């Protein structure tokens, strides 16, 4: 069974909650799909058995010695990536989408497409199974593709090692890396917080989640920061017929656990929040066996 934890809004506690699940569960594969801000490896220190080069997207690079500054590339580029400046063609690396169009139409063959090979995918063992994560090189694009690769590797490992549960820690937002994380997942867990922003972002990510899975559940983290807002979120979920998996209190011990390199359920198993996390995890797992 593949479980994906996402949130819409960042910083609602996805990774801390995923870490708790990963240490409550037995024998699983954890995959960190937040490839441009991967964090779980900090708690799990996976023994790196394998690192794989991820070849990212292409960027157009111009050879000024061949370029005649005819301007054809500039006139066809739809990403505003190409400009003539002081008699020279300049291609903006940040605006280039890697579509190849300019390199194909340049009459002088002056534009080459170059791929970045700085991103990595890692997989290894951790104290409760296997862990896979991606690290996108600074400023790289195509994070959705790296997420796909991370998920494929997690799936392969789960089959190879006989680990039945795959737990995915997703990125914030609702764009391509999120869609890559939730597509085909058996269950989607949305972690939200009782704030106006939390609710607004929940509504958007919920729409994405519903499109990709029938089983969507919501966790309201730090519910006691604003209980009236937590109630409002529950009401909204009820109207959508989306189940509330549980409420978790704001707890400074979660940060303490992070600093200690542990999950909250490992460091403070008897705390209220750990008990609630245990209940939610059992709910998630037992449903899967029906």
């Amino acid at each position, binding site marked *: 069974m593949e479980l994906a934890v996402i949130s*819409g*809004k*960042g*910083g*609602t506690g996805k*990774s801390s909650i995923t870490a708790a699940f990963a240490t409550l569960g037995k024998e699983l594969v954890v995959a960190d799909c*937040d*490839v*441009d*801000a*991967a*964090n779980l490896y*900090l708690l799990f220190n996976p023994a790196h058995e394998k690192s794989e080069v991820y070849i990212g997207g*292409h960027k157009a690079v111009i050879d000024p010695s061949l370029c005649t500054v005819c301007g054809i590339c500039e006139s*066809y580029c*739809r*990403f*505003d990536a190409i400009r003539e400046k002081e008699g020279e063609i300049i291609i903006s690396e*940040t*605006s280039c*989408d*890697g*579509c*190849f*169009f300019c390199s*194909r*139409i340049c009459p002088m063959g002056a534009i080459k497409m170059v791929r970045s090979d700085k991103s990595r995918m890692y997989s290894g063992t951790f104290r409760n199974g296997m862990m896979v994560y991606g690290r*996108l090189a*600074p*400023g*790289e*694009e195509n*994070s*959705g593709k790296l997420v796909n690769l991370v998920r494929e590797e997690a799936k392969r490992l789960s089959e190879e090692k006989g680990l039945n549960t795959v737990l995915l820690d997703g990125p*914030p*937002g*609702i*764009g*391509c*890396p*999120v869609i890559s994380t939730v597509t085909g997942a058996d269950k989607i867990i949305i972690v939200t*917080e009782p*704030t*106006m*922003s*939390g609710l*607004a*972002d929940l509504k*958007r*990510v919920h*729409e*994405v989640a519903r*499109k990709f899975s029938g089983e969507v559940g919501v966790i309201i983290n730090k519910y006691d*920061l*604003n209980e009236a*807002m937590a109630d409002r979120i529950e009401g909204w979920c009820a109207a959508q017929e989306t189940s509330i998996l549980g409420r978790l209190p704001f707890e400074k011990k979660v*940060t303490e656990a*992070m*600093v200690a*390199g542990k999950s909250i359920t490992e460091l403070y198993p008897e705390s209220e929040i750990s008990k609630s996390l245990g209940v939610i995890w059992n709910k998630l797992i037992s449903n899967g066996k029906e």
Partner: protein
Amino acid sequence: MKIAIASGKGGTGKTFVATNLFHVLSARGDRVSLVDCDAEAPDDLLFFQAEKISESDVTHQVPVINKDACTWCGRCSRWCNYNAIFYLPSAQVIEVIENLCHGCGACTFACNAGAITEKPVSLGTVSSYKTASGSPFIEARMHVNEMSPVRVIKAAIKEAGSEGVTILDSPPGTSCPFVQTVDTADYVLLVTEPTPFGLSDLKQSVDTLKTMNKQCGVLINRADIGDSGVKSYLEEEKIPLLAEIKYDPAIARAYSEGRLASEDNKAIAALLTELADIIISDHGTGSHKR
């Protein structure tokens, strides 16, 4: 000048800082505008009374293939770098997968039979508002189920123009949406929290900004939680620590209700005003007085 408020990790307080910074500058009569560039999870508007002035669609051009004119040469499919044209000549199948199309126009150019025309597809909206204080606010909002917010972000920043101080509330992460936002910024204020996750994502943001030759400084939010890792890192890297804000339940409460803490918390208002003055005097271009 343009100041981007960014962070690798989500939920560190970008929106809190951006909206309150905008408020204090606007309240004292500066020429200031705010652009919500977090097009996947736009929340800034929740904090303002604002009147909508205009809304425009951000579109890209997607191909439409006329099968009757198609000669089944397959050139369009070969020129598409996004696998957005599904082509099976033996079964006389040729289809555009709109979700994968980036609107680069290569296929239209590649078609020698004149079988491809284009139609606009909406990716999101850019809306302009006038806030109660009279200062402009612009929101980038990607449609749910779209893949990339980049074009919408770009259009919103363009809409803001270049007069006075423009505050860009960046999306989290360090991949394309972040890069697109900070690309136009004169200065980047990174909001972080002093935890292992915060530090790891901060490093990734700093590394990305270095590749882009962008100047940055740091605000540590919830400065009294976590550990000293962030501060040690800033000292080692000689990155200026511009401000620290301690965890305050009253601030969290105000945020949860969509209120601006700086409206009644004088200390926060003063801290943010001073922060803005430091950034503007050290890195500013042009006048920000109205």
